[in-house]
Every structure is written in structure tokens, then in C-alpha cells.
């Protein structure tokens, strides 16, 4: 149960609510009984099928009901196949020559489209239901004429409504393979999402999965990050991405210097930005590894000490690095 505020009620309200709840519970239990009593491997009861849809719209997490609906869909697919058994069939589609066959296919498609609409209803009510997302993909995979393009556009629309819904991002990824979107288009999409909202970790993540960074792309990624952190230095998303970019073996000393200078400018504006100080630590700490001179060790130590004060929640994390620097100092000496 997530994000459900407890509300204080009067005795009267409580009784009323209890009555309503009893009604809902009875409806649920009666519905389940009806469905389960008619569930069998060779046929289905349309009334039960309709009830299962009603119950799922209210609660899409009742996984057994999605299973039941899949069984029914498989029955319908089988029926469609056997009804056009005299003609050539491919994935449930009849040979187009006979009118009768055409009608059978039409009927099947209408049935599946209704099912897709049901998942949409469920997803609008609860966009994070694993069951609804999986059911939708499963239908599409069994659909004789799947409209993947439509699914793709729906994803884009949903992501504009909530750009952090990882189910939707995952679904998008599944569809990409089906419609053969180009990498360039997806990079463009992630740039658009990031520009709409820099504080969108999901888009930054998505970006990281699209390609391996090379010399050319590194430059543009660094620019995008700088843009984001100057817009809102307190937002963490771009900083995580920066740490990843910094770990890239193609990073040159030139890149590091340029970044370091930009961060110094930002530090002048925002002297207490923990992210900025931390990023400085990464730049100076990563790669230099073994051959740090005393000044560099001193500067890193200073930064980590500042971080200890600025961000006391993560004292243990900063101390870990301070201890490492301390032993490095001893080794050098």
C-alpha cells in the first residue's frame, strides 16, 4: 500500500464506509467464485469473462484473472484457426479469398482490440501495474496484425505525462526492436526529454544505454551535462551521468581540464554545491590513481573535508575516501 493517507473520520462516516466496503468485498468474492467455477480448458463463459474485466479495472494486480483472460484469448485464437481450417492460415489470419474467412479474422481482431483497450483502461487507473503491461505485450505478440507503431506513439505520449514510469520505458524498449527505430532517433528523443526536464533520471539512464561513447560523442555529452548542471546544480540526475562519463577511457586530460575549469566557475556561483565539490574530487581522483603529488592529495583532502560538513548524512562515505587519502599520504612519505 503506497501513498494512501490515513484520514480521520466520524463514527457515522466510518459505518458508511464499512458498509460500502462490505458491498465491494461481496462483489469481489462473488465475482471470483463465478469466474473460477466456469474456468475450464476447452470453453469459456462470456459472463465470467466480462466480470473479470470489471474486477481488473478496479485492481489490475489480481494476476490469476490476467491468466484466465490469456486462456480465453488462446481459445479464441484456436477457434479462429479452426474456423478457417479449409484455407491457408498464418498466425490466425485466414486466406483472404473467402468472405467467411475474412469475417472470422475481423472478429478475432475486434476481440483482441477490446483486450488492448482493457489494458489501457487499467493502465490509466494504475500506470505501474506489472500485470497490465505484460498482458498488453502478450496480446500484441499474439495479434495477427499488431500495430506496433501505435504502441510506440502511445509510449511517447505516456512518457510525456510521466517521464519516470520505468514500465513505460521498458515497454518502449521492447517495441523498438519491432519497428526498427534508428539509434539517432532515440538519442534525439532522450535529448528532447532531458531538455524538457533536466531532472529526469530516466532519460539520462536511457541515454546511457543507447551507445558506447567515443571521442566525438563525449564532447557533446559533456556539453549537455554542463548545460544541465548550470541550470539546476542541486538536481542529482546529471551528476550521476557525469560520473559515468568521467569513467570513460576516451576521456582526455584536455576534457578533464575543461571540465574542472567549468566546475570552478560554478563553484564561484554556488560555493556550497556538494555535487560540484564531489565532481571535482572525481576528476582529480579518478585516473590519477597512483601518482598523486602532495598538493593534489591536499586539495582532495580539503574537498572531502568540506563535503563532510556540507553533507553529514554521508559522513561514512566521505570518511572512506579521507582514510584512503590518509594512507596514500603515509605511503608517499
Amino acid at each position, binding site marked *: *500500500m*503506497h*501513498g*494512501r*493517507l*490515513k484520514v480521520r473520520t466520524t463514527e457515522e462516516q466510518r459505518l458508511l464506509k*464499512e458498509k460500502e*466496503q*462490505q458491498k*465491494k*468485498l461481496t462483489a*469481489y*468474492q462473488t465475482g*471470483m467464485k463465478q469466474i*473460477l467455477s466456469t474456468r475450464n480448458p476447452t470453453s469459456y463463459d462470456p459472463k465470467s469473462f466480462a466480470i473479470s474485466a470489471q474486477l481488473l479495472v478496479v*485492481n489490475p*494486480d*489480481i*494476476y*490469476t484473472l*490476467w*491468466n484466465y483472460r*490469456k486462456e480465453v484469448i488462446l481459445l479464441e485464437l484456436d477457434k479462429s484457426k479452426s474456423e478457417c481450417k479449409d484455407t491457408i492460415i498464418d498466425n490466425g489470419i485466414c486466406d483472404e479469398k473467402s468472405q467467411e474467412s475474412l469475417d472470422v479474422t475481423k472478429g478475432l481482431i475486434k476481440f483482441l482490440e477490446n483486450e488492448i483497450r482493457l489494458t489501457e483502461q487499467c493502465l490509466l487507473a494504475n500506470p505501474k501495474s*506489472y500485470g497490465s503491461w*505484460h498482458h498488453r505485450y*502478450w496480446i500484441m505478440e499474439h495479434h495477427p496484425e499488431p500495430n506496433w507503431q501505435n504502441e510506440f506513439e502511445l509510449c511517447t505520449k505516456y512518457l510525456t505525462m510521466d517521464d*519516470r514510469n*520505468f514500465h513505460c*520505458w*521498458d515497454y518502449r*524498449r521492447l517495441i523498438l526492436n519491432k519497428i526498427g527505430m534508428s539509434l539517432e532517433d532515440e538519442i534525439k528523443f532522450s535529448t528532447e526529454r532531458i531538455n524538457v526536464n533536466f*531532472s529526469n*533520471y*530516466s532519460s539520462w*539512464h*536511457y541515454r*546511457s*544505454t543507447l551507445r558506447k561513447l567515443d571521442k566525438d560523442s563525449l564532447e557533446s555529452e559533456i556539453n549537455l551535462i554542463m548545460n544541465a548542471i548550470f541550470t*539546476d*546544480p*542541486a*538536481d*542529482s*540526475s546529471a551528476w*550521476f*551521468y557525469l*560520473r*559515468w562519463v568521467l*569513467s570513460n577511457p576516451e576521456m582526455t586530460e584536455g576534457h578533464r581540464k575543461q571540465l574542472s575549469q567549468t566546475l570552478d566557475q560554478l563553484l564561484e556561483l554556488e560555493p556550497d554545491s556538494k555535487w560540484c565539490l564531489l565532481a571535482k574530487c572525481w576528476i582529480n581522483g579518478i585516473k590519477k590513481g597512483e601518482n598523486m603529488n602532495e598538493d593534489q592529495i591536499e586539495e582532495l583532502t580539503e574537498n572531502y573535508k568540506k563535503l563532510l560538513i556540507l553533507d*553529514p*548524512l*554521508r*559522513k*561514512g*562515505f566521505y570518511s*572512506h575516501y579521507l582514510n584512503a587519502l590518509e594512507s596514500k599520504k603515509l605511503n608517499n612519505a
Partner: protein
Amino acid sequence: MAVPLKDIEIKEEYPKTLLLEKHIKFIKQYGQSENDFEYGMTDYLRVSGMYWGLTALELVDKLDSLPKEEVIGFIQKCQDPETGGISACIDHDPHLLHTLSAVQILCIYNRIDAIDVEGVIKYVASLQLPDGSFTGDKWGEVDTRFSFCAVATLSLLKRLNAINVDKAVEFVKSCMNFDGGFGSRPKSESHAGLIYCCLGFLSVTGRLDIVEQDTLAWWLCERQLSSGGLNGRPEKLPDVCYSWWVLSSLSIIGRLHWISSETLKRFILACQDTESGGFADRPGDIPDPFHTLFGLAALSLLGFGDIKQVNPTYCMPQYVIDRLQLKPQVLK
């Protein structure tokens, strides 16, 4: 210019001490009757619900207050004789999530003999795909949650060799991200719940060597917000269940001390319901057994004296894991 961080405020009136007796009462009362609304409407997650409540009670040494034989009898009825899998409830379908919960309960009771163990092993093994991943049931949904459920179940039954472990590891490894975290499938965004599943998986299979320890530990410790609570992904609200997913993950990779225990304790305690008992996701919300277990388990990892030691990999009492002579890997 700066957008305020998403967080909550810990108010002075929120509870500051552990309301142990109230939680015991809360769990005991939960599910007294199928006619109770919340309980009756959630039969589709019953066996997992029983695991949450039962483990919570055992962590505070009150397991005796539940009708043991009734619980075991119920689980027996939930095992599907054909596939060997266990369902959430009678009349529901078998699923890996509930199969693990059932095995966890029976291990706590030391009564694994009560079910058809070979059936369970056959069921789990039947769900592995050629790429090493696992589906939750026969309908094909793939997720790293199920990889964890599979190896946790099999290791509790001492039959990890029933599946292709190397392939399973390969799949989990392919779900590692730029930030060191893991998602539900390859290239899926990192999420603390799934990170716990993947680290738990690697802990059970002894393959934590593939983890980028400090990159991941930093991402995890950044989940702590000013309120002390932990969120599951960047820029999200804190939630008691993430106290568990993040904390157990940090424990497994040996970096528990990278967050502030004191402020986290304050947050978790603030999420207790002073009237009914139980923990909610955030202060003032409705409590439930799920958050009650994860609240208590997190407090156990933080060294709360009144709570038994919990194992971070299995989310079960440590003494049960010791009794089974299991030694899930942890990093230093």
C-alpha cells in the same frame, strides 16, 4: 532557481520510540477474517502476505501467537500438484513470488517436509529460459525479481544445482547499468528494489565479484534524504520499504556505514501508526504488513536491540539461515 528536493518533514509529534506491542497486535489482528475488507480483497497476495506478517512476528519473538498448523495446512493446499508451484491462495495460480514466500515460511517453521519439495524444484527449474533469465510463471514475464526468487528458493532447499547458475548469473550481469545499479531487464533503469534482488541473487550464488562495489554503494547512499528516509530512485519520495531494499543492499556490499543510521531510524520510527500499530510507507499513511516487516527488518540491520538479527540476503531471521547452514556471500 533550485527545485526543492522531494522529501517529507519529520514533525515533532511523530513517534520516536518503537511501539513493539502495538505492532504485534497489528499483525496478529490482520487477517483474522476473510470478511475484513483489506484482507479479503488481497487474497491474490496471501502467501507473500503471510510471509511478511509471520517474519515480522518472528523478528520480535512472537511467532507462537500464530496458528502454526493452520498456516502450514494452508500452504499445502496452495501447492499445485501438477506443476509443483505454489499460488498466492487457494483458487489462484502458482507463481514464483509465492513459491519463495511459502518456502521461506516453511524454513522458519523448520517444516519444509510439509510440501512436495521435488515439485517445487521442478517448478523453479521449468521457469528458466535459455538466456538464463526466469519468468514468474508460465505466462512469460521476465524480471530480475524472478531470478532472485529462483535462486533463493532453490538455495533454501539446497538444490541450486537444479538450474544453470552460470547462465542465470550472465543474465543478471546483463542488467547492470551505468550507475552500477540493476534494473528488471537488460537496459532497464536502476531501482533499489531490483538492486536488492540482483545483489541478493549474487550473494546467494557467490558472484558479488561482478559488482562495481563503490559506484553502486555511492548511488545507494545518495538515496538518503534530509528526512533520513531512503527513496528507491533519484528524485523520488522516501518510503519505509526502501529502508529495507537500500539498507540490505548496502549491507550485502559492506557499505552500511555510508548512510546515517540515526536519521534513518528517526524516519522509520516516524512511520509507525500510533493508533493501530504497524508501519506505513510514510508518516500519516495507512499501515500494512509489508511495510511493517521491512520497517522492523531495517531496524534490525541498524542494530535495534529488541529485534532479532535479520539476514540481509534472505530477509529471514539469521538463526534460521544458520540452522540451514547457508552462508550467503557479503563483501567487506
